[in-house]
């Protein structure tokens, strides 16, 4: 496998659905983290990279769990559980 082939594989990785899905979640988590920081009365520049990473990671986990619970609710709704 040549270097040119490796570059092609790398460029194709951006079109991978899993990568795209992860990127969307990451962007959403970053925007939520920004909002959280602004609500706290501070700016992202005041934080270290580690702290920012922790905040974004927390938000990412929240988004993932939200998606899971909403997905479950959607499945239950499809099955006709009206009392939810």
């Amino acid at each position, binding site marked *: 496998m040549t270097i040119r082939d490796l570059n092609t594989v790398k460029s194709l990785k951006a079109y991978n659905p899993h990568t795209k899905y992860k990127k969307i979640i990451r962007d959403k988590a970053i925007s939520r983290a*920004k909002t959280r920081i602004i609500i706290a009365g501070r700016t992202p520049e005041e934080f270290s990279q580690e702290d*920012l990473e922790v905040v974004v990671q927390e938000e990412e986990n929240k988004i993932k769990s939200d998606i899971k619970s909403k997905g479950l609710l959607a499945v239950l709704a499809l099955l006709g559980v009206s009392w939810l």
Partner: protein
Amino acid sequence: MMNQIFRITFVTFIYKRYKQTILSSALLLFVLWLIEKVHQDFVSYSQLNEDTSYLALSFGLKWLAFICVTGLYTAWNLVFKKESFKKDKLSKEELKKYGKMLNEEGELQDDLLAKMQSIPLNKAEDKKKAESKTKKASAQQSSEQAHKDEASDKHQPDPFAQIRNKESLNSKADFVLKNKRK
């Protein structure tokens, strides 16, 4: 109680709407019945007298009367009814009563056109100008704001740039563990 009120209202509405048709139909049936009765009487009279010379003519006359009455009924309901409801034949007072707009010469005008003409021109123009002014001002403001935001974003480095490109993020616990190992 409510059902009866609905029924009465419905019957009244139907009667008022189709008054002419209902009355003329009843009259037609009555006249046809009368002609038939008269003819039956004539037939029985001719049988009693044993004179059947005009019997064939009586049948012809009966059917001719039937056709004439039915023709009159049709003409009355189809031709005269339509004529009486033509807008042109209504008087000016009647047209005004039905909410129709008349021009200076007393001719019937298109409703929408008349309404548009009744709105003063200056008022409409002023409204348009004010709307365009506010639209322009808001567009300018929003474009300036967007430019400012873009400029500020370009000048300031993104603190999340590294995090954006990371494969997986570490939690607080991960960092604590990493620091302990060191």
